């Protein structure tokens, strides 16, 4: 296996777990709220995912570097302060240097800071592992989040608006399924997604294992 030689046995396992067997959404049911809320258009899903991947990386590097110093009783507060300050600083920098990007991301900043995948990975992985493996874990989990959001968004956008990334792809006579843009459509599709991926990846539902 090429991946095994490139990333080492542990690195390969970290990546495989993040992307598939310990998928943050279907296995740990983290990040459900944002997966439901911002998966109605592919464009939004990509913006949100890019933000989450970036913040995961930032948190991964910072927490894994600090991990030997963080007293276990105040670790959650450390994650919160680190994530919130880090994101705010990046947001301010974007506003000053590339305001157009910052404007496009504006509504997502709050959603990214409070994304539970970031806290979840900080507690489950970054605080116990070195920086190299934390970066791999951040990328793997970020990718898992991205493909989930984008997959759901593709289905929702096509059915709800007849478009893909803003381009009309279904005929104009298409009767838009407004329910797919509404939260109900998201619950339905995310439920289906969990069912399919859990069956394929052989993930036990919580409480059974």
């Amino acid at each position, binding site marked *: 296996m090429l991946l095994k030689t490139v990333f080492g046995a542990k690195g390969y396992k970290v990546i495989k777990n993040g992307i598939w067997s310990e998928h943050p959404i279907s296995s740990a049911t983290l990040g459900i709220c944002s997966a439901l809320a*911002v998966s109605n258009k592919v464009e939004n899903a990509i913006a949100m995912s890019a933000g989450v991947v970036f913040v995961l990386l930032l948190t991964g590097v910072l927490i894994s570097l600090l991990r030997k110093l963080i*007293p276990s009783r105040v670790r959650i507060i450390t994650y919160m*302060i680190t994530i919130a300050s880090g994101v705010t600083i990046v947001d301010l920098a974007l506003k000053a240097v590339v305001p157009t990007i910052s404007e496009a991301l504006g509504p997502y900043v709050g959603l990214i800071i409070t994304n539970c995948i970031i806290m979840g990975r900080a507690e489950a992985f970054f605080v116990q592992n070195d920086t190299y493996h934390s970066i791999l874990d951040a990328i793997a989990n970020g990718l898992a989040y991205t493909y989930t959001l984008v997959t759901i968004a593709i289905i929702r956008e096509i059915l709800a608006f007849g478009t893909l990334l803003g381009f009309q792809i279904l005929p104009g006579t298409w009767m838009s399924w407004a329910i797919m843009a509404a939260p109900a459509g998201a619950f339905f599709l995310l439920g289906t997604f969990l069912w399919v991926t859990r069956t394929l990846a052989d993930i036990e539902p919580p409480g059974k294992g």
Partner: protein
Amino acid sequence: MKEKICMIVFVLILGSTWTTALVVVDKYTRPYIEKYQAEKLRKSVLGAFGISYEGQDIEAVFSENVDVIEKGDKTIYRTKSGAIAFNITGSGSQGPISGVMALESDLKTIKGITIVSHVETPGLGDRVLEKKKLDTFKGKKIVPQLEVIVAGTAEKENEVQGITGATLTSKAFEKLINTESKEYISLVSEGE
């Protein structure tokens, strides 16, 4: 005991480091952000009036076409033809919406609306505030008051078609337009 002191020291150091970092970054980025905000407001005013500024010096186009009138803490923008524009700010469904609305010189017809900032849910509420949708507000009357029709079809000249799935934002935006325009119109009329 030693462990507790270590913990307190750690939290103090962590907190003050991040606070310092935030203060420093804020200090250095603020002038750039304010400059951009001012330029954006000018662009929004020009956009609401329908004055093209592409590829030109915003500052020059703005001062040539628009007069700024200060009334108390309110600002009114007026063109040579008598059309006026003003800030509209209020709550949307998720948080504050801020924009600029321009009225024709009859003070009854919408000339254009641009949005400066909002935090409505992407893909749901924010569809009401997209340019494509805002363009349908042009030419609509705000007397007796503007109505955003969510269930049913907009027919009258004071009605705009709303968006299913964005009812709350549609309604909040309708309220915002009506409240702000009434306030500014009375401000303009009493001054004359």
